[in-house]
């Protein structure tokens, strides 16, 4: 593990420990009340979910183009993180929605598109796990198709009524609420980077293991 890992891990843990305090000090949102506090975890999770998806897609593209193994490792790690943060988003979302919209699930654009993208990421992991040898390239192809699909998912689902808050919610939040939000985003981003480093390291070690096995066979 790189030198910065341990101190960064400690900082990240501290930041996460501080989040409840920071969030509690954020002003009370008038219409939604207490349940709005979920937003401070839901939104950064969603951004990390998107980030993971983008990293996976780009890494898959590079892997398909030049076949370097490290791109494949990056893609695999990013896919796992995408599934993780997608799960967090898809669970905290309904918990928030139950109170604000009165229903656990709605078929609006962003929610449905997230669900479908998450399922593509899960399919990626299933393929890597059960596809047998040679599934790296197949998974890369899948990731690529998944990424290319996102605009289509959005447009096609768009005909359903949208009650998800519009993207402009962030700029219109009072400044005092922006602070805690960005703090949470920073914590999540740090968590993402740490988990990503750990995960890539796992892949590298696996590759090293394979290499040692191969050298033993000779």
């Amino acid at each position, binding site marked *: *593990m790189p030198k910065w*890992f*341990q101190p960064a891990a400690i900082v990240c843990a501290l930041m*996460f420990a501080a989040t*409840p305090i920071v969030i509690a000090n954020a002003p009370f949102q008038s219409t939604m*009340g*207490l*349940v709005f*506090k*979920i937003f401070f*975890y*839901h939104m950064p*999770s969603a951004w990390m979910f998107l980030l993971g998806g983008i990293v996976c897609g780009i890494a898959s593209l590079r892997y398909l183009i030049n076949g370097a193994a490290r791109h494949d490792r990056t893609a695999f790690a990013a896919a796992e993180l995408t599934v*993780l943060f997608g*799960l*967090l988003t898809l*669970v*905290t979302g309904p*918990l*928030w929605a*139950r*109170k*604000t*919209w*009165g*229903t*656990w699930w*709605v*078929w609006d654009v962003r929610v449905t598109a997230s669900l479908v993208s998450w399922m593509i990421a899960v399919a990626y992991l299933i393929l890597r796990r059960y596809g047998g040898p040679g599934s790296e390239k197949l998974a890369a192809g899948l990731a690529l198709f998944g990424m290319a699909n996102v605009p289509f998912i959005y447009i096609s689902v768009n005909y359903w*009524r949208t*009650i998800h808050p519009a993207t402009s919610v962030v700029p219109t939040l009072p400044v005092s609420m922006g602070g805690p939000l960005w703090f949470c985003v920073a914590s999540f981003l740090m*968590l993402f980077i740490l*988990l990503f480093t*750990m*995960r890539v*390291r*796992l892949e590298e*070690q*696996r590759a*090293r*293991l394979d290499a*040692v*096995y191969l*050298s*033993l066979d000779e």
Partner: protein
Amino acid sequence: MLSIFLWMNNVLTAIRRRAALLLVALLCWGVLPAVAAQQPPQEQPKKFDEYVPASQLPPTEQIPAVRLVVGAYSFVIVVVFLYMVSVARRLNTVQHEVARLEADVKRTGRS
């Protein structure tokens, strides 16, 4: 860096069960009653087009926000924690295996 993971493993075995149980209990307290208390809406319009804001729902339909918030936060923390444990453990296993094999190679290589 192996040491940090060995340390993590020991600490984990010691307090893992209690911590995990506590967090899962929090989670259950937060979410499961919320799910159980939900009754099918009686005169709700069929399509999701016309939703009724939660504050106008009959009192039986409302769930205390605190449970949802606590449930959400504990879920996030539990899941992230479990994932970290999973990666750490997998990394540990693989690194042990690599070390063992390389020691083997060295031994047989020398002899």
